[in-house]
């Protein structure tokens, strides 16, 4: 079992804290970096990801903004055009849509529109996913809206170690990055290595558990689900890949695994129909058609808005549904 994303050295901390220290390092490293969003300053963010940063770097570099997501992303685009490197926070997944025009028609297009003259090293952090018993619009998984938008890079972290390194890589990246953080795992603890040297590149998938009978593909909160499923399966040896980067997708790593195992299940919380898993399934099929025993199986949310929290355990893919899908790879 490889654990490339969890180096043995380093301090243990929660995923939220790992992001916090990553952002702190980014702010300290480069005076052009700034953090902005609703309640990111004094409060330190509703998930405490920016806790203490305003006190340390001042309210101009860790900026509480007016309440408007278009305003956050739109002014951040303007600041990036002026040479800054803004890191925007969207408070919850379901509130990114007022910014959708800015993200889709402006942020994603400006490099092409200016033939590369405009650089947009801008990060949009989005806590995503369900399972925390929250109200409507606090448990959604909107990643597919962004992965289909050329000009954006889209990543998702699933461990404290990755959270720390990937947020720093995202801030350093010259392209716009939509950075998904698994809400459900904010308080999960794990080792963090603050030395970026050994970290895999941001756009690489990582085999987080080796196996030989089928490949489970996951990102964000479902990585944990898939690891649990693999652990629970006593009969079969399941490989688990944390995709980490959704756009670009590290097709090579994924295809190499599926070519070996002959079975593939892709798992996310977003509705299956038209979800990111469709792209993964189509692409894996394109690359591994002859190796596949059965079609790629997709496990995810249903064709329904995210339900009230008392129903979310039905809506969300869990260990059993993952294993049921694994069964269907034979």
């Amino acid at each position, binding site marked *: 079992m490889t654990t490339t994303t969890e180096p043995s050295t380093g301090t243990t901390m929660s995923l939220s804290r790992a992001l916090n220290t990553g952002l702190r390092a980014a702010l300290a490293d480069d005076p052009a970096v700034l953090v902005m969003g609703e*309640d990111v300053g*004094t409060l330190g963010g509703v998930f405490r990801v920016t806790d203490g940063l305003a006190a340390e770097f001042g309210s101009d570099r860790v900026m509480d903004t007016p309440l408007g997501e*278009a305003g956050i992303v739109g002014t951040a685009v303007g600041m990036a055009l002026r040479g800054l490197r803004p890191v925007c926070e969207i408070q919850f997944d379901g509130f990114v849509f007022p910014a959708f025009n800015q993200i889709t028609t402006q942020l994603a297009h400006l490099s092409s529109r200016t033939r590369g003259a405009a650089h947009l090293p801008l990060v949009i952090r989005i806590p995503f996913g369900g399972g925390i018993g*929250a109200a409507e619009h606090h448990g959604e998984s909107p990643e597919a809206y962004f992965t289909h938008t050329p000009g954006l890079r889209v990543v998702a972290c699933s461990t404290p170690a990755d959270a720390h390194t990937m947020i720093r890589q995202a801030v350093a990246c010259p392209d716009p990055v939509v950075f998904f953080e698994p809400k459900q795992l904010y308080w999960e603890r794990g080792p963090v290595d603050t030395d970026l040297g050994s970290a895999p590149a941001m756009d690489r998938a990582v085999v987080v558990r080796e196996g030989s009978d089928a490949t489970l593909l996951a990102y964000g909160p479902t990585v944990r689900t898939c690891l649990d499923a693999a652990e629970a399966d006593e009969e079969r040896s399941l490989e688990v890949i944390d995709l980490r980067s959704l756009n670009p997708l590290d097709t090579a790593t994924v295809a190499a695994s599926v070519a070996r195992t002959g079975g593939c299940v892709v798992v996310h919380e977003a509705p299956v129909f038209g979800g990111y898993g469709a792209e993964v399934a189509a692409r894996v099929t394109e690359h591994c058609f002859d190796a596949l025993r059965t079609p790629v199986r997709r496990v995810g949310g249903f064709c*329904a808005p995210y339900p009230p929290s008392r*129903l979310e355990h*039905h809506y969300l893919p869990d260990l059993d549904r993952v294993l049921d899908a694994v069964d269907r790879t034979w």
Partner: protein
Amino acid sequence: MSGAEGQPLRLLDAEGVYRDHPDLRADFDEAQIRGLYRDMAMVRRLDTECLALARQGELAVWTPLSGQEAAQVGSARSLLPGDMAFPTYRDHGVAWCRGVPPAALLAHFRGVAHSGWDPREYRLHPYSVVVGGHALHAVGYAMGAAAQGTADAAIAYLGDGAMSQGEVNEAFVWAAARRAPVVFVCQNNQWAISEPVERQSAVPLAERARGFGFPGVRVDGNDVLACRAVVRDALARARSGHGPTLVEAVTYRMGPHTSSDDPRRYRTAEEERVWLRRDPLARLRTHLSRTDTDPEKFLASVDEDCDALARELRHACRTLPDPRPGEIWEHVYAQTHPLVAEERGWYADYLDSFEETP
């Protein structure tokens, strides 16, 4: 009507003394005043009870309104039965006035449903979780009511933070352009979670309206009589085809943003104390105790009603049935949708397969 800038309009001063205002008609009789007090007391109790239920884990979350009773009750009691209200997630006082059974409010916060009432029955739209998302609905609804030749109006509730959302400002554009019979009630409770209102606007929020071509009024949001009078007049104006009004009710969220919030992280105890002295209930109670024919008896009866309400809420909360899994797919579409049917069927079979395993 005046009052977009400077001192908010007021009828009851901080000591609960009634003073006439040249711009406000305030002909409320004892029964009406009692009614307003009772409403405020009941929703305060509802609020306290639900916050407790949230802290006990019976509700997933609660969004307390304490401090904003006057703004909510004063405005919502000005609605006619045919009017439609579009609330935020904090407007339990509005729901109360629209006649929504208190237990029905719990559904959202316990997570058994997104919304617990039929909006057509109570003429209350579901709570708006996406800040500002409902402002345009209110305008469109009002346009529809006017197009149908009725005198129904719509009221949209907004927070101070919501005033920054593009869609809310677009709602102002549309309402003005179409002279829609809609009243925007902005409860400026000084905070949008941890952000003070100054972060959203350098000038009083009521001033926003004039730039769009309709009047804005600042009212003391802790004075239920003033809120009642101002919103009544704004609704009358809307009904008679004179278009929208923005009412900024200057008030205070006395509790946390939600049951999960800790206001000590962003505001001082001193500030909270200042506003505690402006408690809208205390103010009307003082007024009542000076002017009511039998205040003791009345207040005692209200206390009893509050206790009964609290009991009812606790019971309702604990007995609220969990939804069936099938509800996930039940109302996604009004008409048959093969994918929904397929998934629903599959999941039912899937669940059954567990039961079959011995």
